[in-house]
């Protein structure tokens, strides 16, 4: 197990530009190596509960924090969140919701489903990068796995 590549951050994001920019922000803080990216909700769910055939999946390895975009193709972010928080294996996993929306129903729904944090993606990339990396780091440190 210790040989397996450690996944520290699971980024669930469909927009390749956002992915690139987020990874760039993580790179700036030397976190990019431990980031796994899911391009839609289905892929994210497959990561946790999917078939053995998932190419990038290493069974039994849990990311230390999930950054989850709400607006996703196939299965939307709120559904992913619901499934994660419904399963005992993933329930304790910290989930930070990322969205470009300030719409209150989204925020309320996310918190109701057990989201640990909520970040509205600012258009200003600098603040976005700062917010993402700070929140990511926070949960990484808080959720430090023993050993």
């Amino acid at each position, binding site marked *: 197990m210790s040989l397996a590549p450690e996944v520290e951050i699971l980024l669930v994001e469909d*927009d390749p*530009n*956002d992915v690139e*920019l987020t990874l*760039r922000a993580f790179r700036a803080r030397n976190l990019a190596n431990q980031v796994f990216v899911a391009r839609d909700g289905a892929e994210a769910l497959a990561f946790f509960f999917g078939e053995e055939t998932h190419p990038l999946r290493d069974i039994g390895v849990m990311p230390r924090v999930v950054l989850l975009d709400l*607006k996703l193709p196939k299965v939307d972010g709120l559904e992913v969140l619901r499934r994660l928080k419904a399963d005992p294996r993933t329930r304790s996993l910290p989930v930070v919701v990322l*969205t*470009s*929306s*300030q*719409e209150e129903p989204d925020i309320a729904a996310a918190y109701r489903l057990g989201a640990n944090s909520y970040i509205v*993606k*600012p*258009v*200003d*990339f*600098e603040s*976005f*990068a700062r917010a993402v990396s700070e929140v990511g780091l926070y949960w990484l440190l808080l959720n430090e796995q023993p050993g």
Partner: protein
Amino acid sequence: MSPWPTLAFERRIQIGFGVAVAIIVAIGAAALRSSSATLESAGWVAHTLDVRGALERAVAIAIGAESDVRGYEISGDSAFLGEYDAARTDLNRLLSRLRELTADNPTQQRRLDSLEALIPQRIELLRQILEAHRRHRIAGAAGVMSTGRVKPFMDEIRGLVARMEDEETRLLAARSATMRARADETRLAVLGGTLLALVLALAAGVLVKRELGRRQLAEETLRAAQGRFRQVLASNTAVIYANKVAGETFSPSWISENVTRITGYGTDEALQTSWWIDHLHPDDRSRVLAEMGALVKKEELATEYRFRFKDGTYHWVHDEARLIRDAEGQALEVFGSWVDSTERRRAEAALRESEERFRLLVGTVRDYAIYMLDPNGRVVSWNRGAEQIKGYSAEEIVGRHFSCFYPPEAVAAGAPEHALAMAAEKGRFEEENWRLRKDGSRFWADVVITAVRDEEGKLFGFAKVTRDLTERKRTNELLRRHTAQLEAANVELDAFAYSVSHDLRAPLRSIDGFSQALLEDYAGRLDAAGQDYLQRVRAATQRMATLIDDLLDLSRVTRSEMTIAPVDLSELARELATELTSGDPERHVEIVITPDVAVRADRGLLRVVLHNLMGNAWKFTGKRSDARIEVGVVAADGERAYYVRDNGAGFDMAYASKLFGAFQRLHRVTEFPGTGVGLATVQRIIHRHGGRVWAESAVGRGATFYFTLS
């Protein structure tokens, strides 16, 4: 008792006094008679004494003559003879006197006859003695005397005289007795009469006293009645008057005093001949004067005219007059009464006007069928609206039962009767249902039936108002459909706003992010101009992001649910002031907030309003060192207007109409940043509260934004 009451009091008094006077006269007569009888009886006593005196003197003279003769016989003295002659004369005189005295008494006359016969015989005898003596000288004479022939004569005379005296005495006694009896009668009559007169006088006195009392009472009653009459007249609204009639002319003779209270004229003025005619309204004068002629013909007149009161105003007066004629049919006097009818006429005119208005209103209403039913449900009246809606003309429908307006199934179910029964019981019946037109087509009707009752509460009929709601029913259906469509569109709009917030922002973020990445990673290969362009790209994306956020805010403000509750506006303003000052601590702004301004509003939305207005004030005072912001309340057009005032840049009122439109800006962005959505948001929130928002300003003199909340 029976004749008395029918006699007038005066007659009774007259009779009473007449009787009393008669009695007093009778008493006087009796007394007079009694006193004359006393006098007469006294005369008779004297008469008796006279007769007796004469008789005694006659006897004495006869005896004296005898003595004289005897004296001559004895002495021969001729002196005795002289006396004897005198005695003879005296005797004759006495005898004739006695005859006079006893002329009424035949018995005494007869005795006197005998006496007159005896006394001359005695005198004759004495004469013979004397003759004899003269012839025979002394001796013979003695012989005659002594013969005794003289003596029986004397006795006879004496006896006769005594009988006559007795007779007189008896007569006296008889007369005295009669006299006394009469005196007793008189006394009795006087006494009785006096008593009777006294009683009568007493009775008359009582009668007079009683009558006086009665008259006094009657006078008091009359006075009281007169007093009441005066008061009634004084407080009456009718002026009473009397006119003397002489031929064709009337002259006022009396007028009740209330004329002063009512018209302002004194009674002395009102009694002047031309007073009435002088104050008649010129337009009414000829008519009223013509009507006066009718008074003479018809004996009575009721008319109305305008009359000028003392204060100069004309009042309508209702005048009713009656002509009084004497027994010959000659017009004597006119009596009348006179009431100020201005108020009544005004009320009547108002009533007429209101009735006319009502009639016009009901008659000309076309959209409502307004008509009356009798208590049995038969149509009594019909307006144009009823004609229009139901298709019947008034001639066709009046008198028919209103159940013909109901569809057959409703009639079968007893709906018309039920409607009337409910209206009669509850006063009003209302329903929306199908009704029939004359052509048999149906229409959806709103029907109100109201029971109409008279003052005693007796059912007088029903007022029925029917409205054709067919069109409205259709419109309502349409409206419902449209509302549903609108609601669907709103849901779509929500979804749209949602995707805008996600999908428009994401590319912006990329543009900004990669521009930043270029600046960071390729700074060395970009010259200053390239770097400036990238900075401009970034600034533009920022600005577009702000626009999107503001648009979303505006949309949220329109769609969110409102919860109206009491809000302390002053406290809200203080919170926002703190946010503003802490967000920009470099600036010094004086913020003055009127305390305890309480309003009813949605707290969240009100916060957005104040946030925008105070934010604007903060922004537009940015170039002033003595910036001042005021929040307070004033009264405007009877409502409370809340305001936010600043002493900042202000704006030209010519552009005030553009203030509240979305994306409308009155300043260049480089001058003051902003998207122009804030005031549009404020206006939407205020409109959702049912209020108004407006602004007052001048360039360089600050601005005041007012808003009201319903």
